[in-house]
């Protein structure tokens, strides 16, 4: 082992109490950083998963219909008020070709053409307003894993089968195997058999969504052969907006990402991340000041030893190294202990914090990169914090150091 390392380790061991205190300080700092990182990351991940659990990353719809102003150039009269057009239910023009373009767009993982519109579900005297979703199960399940939320029966939407939410089933007093009547404003009127019940954790959606086969939805909504929207998922969720813009340009359709429809959630994430960064910055600063102050005291305490070492031929560079190594060791030890402590705290918190339904509020990821990042930062902070004390030690005049020590 190099002499500088031997000296650094021995000096740290000699000042046991001081060393233990500063390692404890670094440990606490790293643990705070680790816990905050895990907590905020976990919470955001959980929220994102919940938001995207029943939502496509991008929904492609027909472009909105605008009112065109048609006036004779020479006419004296002008329109005082232009009313916006009501957006009627209509199919995406040449949706198969748009589907091909979307499927070939880089980053797109799965695509599902969907027919959706409003209607009513009735059983006996009970009638409820619902959203009809006509899907091709194989495609749809790759976009939204609604089958994960099936609590009774199965997700089967072929022929006259339908899948409804548990709240709607309760409102209509039906269960799997029962039949309900579906009607639409476009004149559709079908009786379907309930094949499965889902519970996606949102009462509103449990009450509104009714899944039927795509062909049945097309027929009931008066859109034979058409689809109202194309749902898709992408490989990088935070690239969704960029990909949506690409698709919009390529298809001349209205592509809306989850990021645009959940802008407030994203803004909250940004603010959270900023706050976390500020807290982490202050913690790093406090840790650095702690290490620096302890090493400054150590330099003062070790003046005599530094003088003796210099008298025996130690170069100022060697003395500099001795104190930089001490900073690095303190940083590294604190980082390792802090990572363990931070993980334990994150684990405890993940078990203590629960959602309303009793599930874990967040799951700590405890990724290797987080550990390596924390250790790297603490090591760097340790060395940087040691620079000033180490330079001071290296510059000590040996004669004065021996005399004053």
């Amino acid at each position, binding site marked *: 082992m190099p002499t500088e390392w031997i000296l650094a380790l021995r000096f740290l061991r000699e000042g046991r109490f001081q060393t233990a205190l500063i390692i404890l300080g670094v440990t606490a700092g790293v643990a705070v950083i680790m816990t905050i990182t895990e907590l905020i990351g976990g919470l955001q991940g959980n929220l994102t998963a919940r938001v995207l659990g029943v939502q496509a990353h991008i929904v492609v719809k027909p472009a909105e219909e605008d009112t065109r102003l048609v006036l004779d150039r020479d006419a004296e009269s002008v329109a005082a008020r232009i009313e916006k057009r009501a957006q009627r239910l209509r199919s995406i023009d040449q949706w198969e070709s748009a589907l091909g373009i979307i499927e070939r767009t880089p980053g797109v993982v799965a695509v599902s053409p969907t027919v959706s519109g409003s209607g009513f579900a009735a059983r006996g005297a009970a009638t409820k307003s619902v959203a009809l979703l006509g899907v091709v199960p194989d495609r749809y399940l790759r976009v939204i894993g609604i089958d994960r939320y099936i609590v009774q029966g199965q997700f089967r939407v072929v022929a006259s089968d339908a899948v409804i939410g548990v709240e709607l089933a309760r409102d209509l007093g039906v269960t799997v195997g029962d039949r309900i009547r579906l009607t639409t404003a476009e004149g559709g009127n079908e009786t379907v058999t309930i094949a499965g019940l889902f519970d996606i954790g949102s009462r509103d959606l449990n009450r509104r969504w009714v899944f039927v086969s795509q062909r049945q939805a097309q027929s009931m909504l008066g859109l034979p052969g058409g689809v109202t929207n194309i749902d898709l998922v992408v490989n990088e969720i935070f690239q969704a907006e960029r990909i949506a813009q690409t698709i919009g340009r390529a298809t001349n359709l209205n592509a809306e990402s989850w990021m645009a429809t959940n802008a407030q959630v994203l803004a909250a994430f940004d603010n959270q991340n900023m706050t976390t960064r500020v807290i982490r910055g202050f913690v790093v600063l406090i840790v650095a000041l702690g290490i620096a102050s302890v090493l400054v005291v150590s330099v003062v305490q070790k003046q005599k030893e530094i003088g003796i*070492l210099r008298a025996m031929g130690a170069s100022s560079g060697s003395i500099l190294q001795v104190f930089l190594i001490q900073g690095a060791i303190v940083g590294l030890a604190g980082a390792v202990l802090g990572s363990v402590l931070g993980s334990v705290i994150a684990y405890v918190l993940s078990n203590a914090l629960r959602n309303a339904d009793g599930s874990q509020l967040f799951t700590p990821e405890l990724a290797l990169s987080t550990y390596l990042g924390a250790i790297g930062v603490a090591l760097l902070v340790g060395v940087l914090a040691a620079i000033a004390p180490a330079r001071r030690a290296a510059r000590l005049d040996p004669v004065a150091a021996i005399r004053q020590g």
Partner: protein
Amino acid sequence: MTEPILKLDDVRKRYNVGTPIETEVLHGIGFTLQVAEFAALIGPSGSGKSTLLNVIGLLERPTSGSVRVRGEETTTLDDAGITALRGRAIGFVFQFHHLIPAFTALENVMMPMMIERGRRDAEMQSRARELLVEVGLEQALGKKPAELSGGMQQRVAIARSLAMRAPLVLADEPTGNLDTKTADDVFALMRRFNERFGTAFLIVTHDPRLAARCDRTIELVDGQVVSDRPTIRPQP
């Protein structure tokens, strides 16, 4: 004739140069020390003994003049050269031993070798052990300085000063903090090393009794050598 181990020529040391309180502490010191010489440097407090020892030990640079160690002019060396030469050619024994408390007696003796070679190895451990046996501390190899008496600490310091086989050892009041019996033992030890290894010693002392047992006495008063003579010992 062999090259002197130390040669001083018109060495001057001034502090606060260029300020109204500029003070010259050493006024043109000049003498040589031959290989294996055993000399005492005496003088009243404030005569400049410690400053001279620091200049000879390459811990301080002279303001002017020449300091040659083993024939090498030191005043033109850069800091790295000075540090390397100091580690290689000069051993120190301080009044308060100045051992490093965090290390054992054995490690303290190994320290100059560890610094020079940048690591520790078995060979230096064996040399340090030999030296400590030589100074009668074979039982104290693993003890820290705080566990040793003043005399034992000073013996460790002497062993350390010889670890690099330095041809010159500078001792600043090495017995100043010891009782008469222990001081005699420590002095005898230095004498033995001087005779056995041919190491030159320059010993700063206030104790005329010890100075009288050196081969040569250099007396410094007000920063000047006022006498430099072989010690006349009473005939047995």
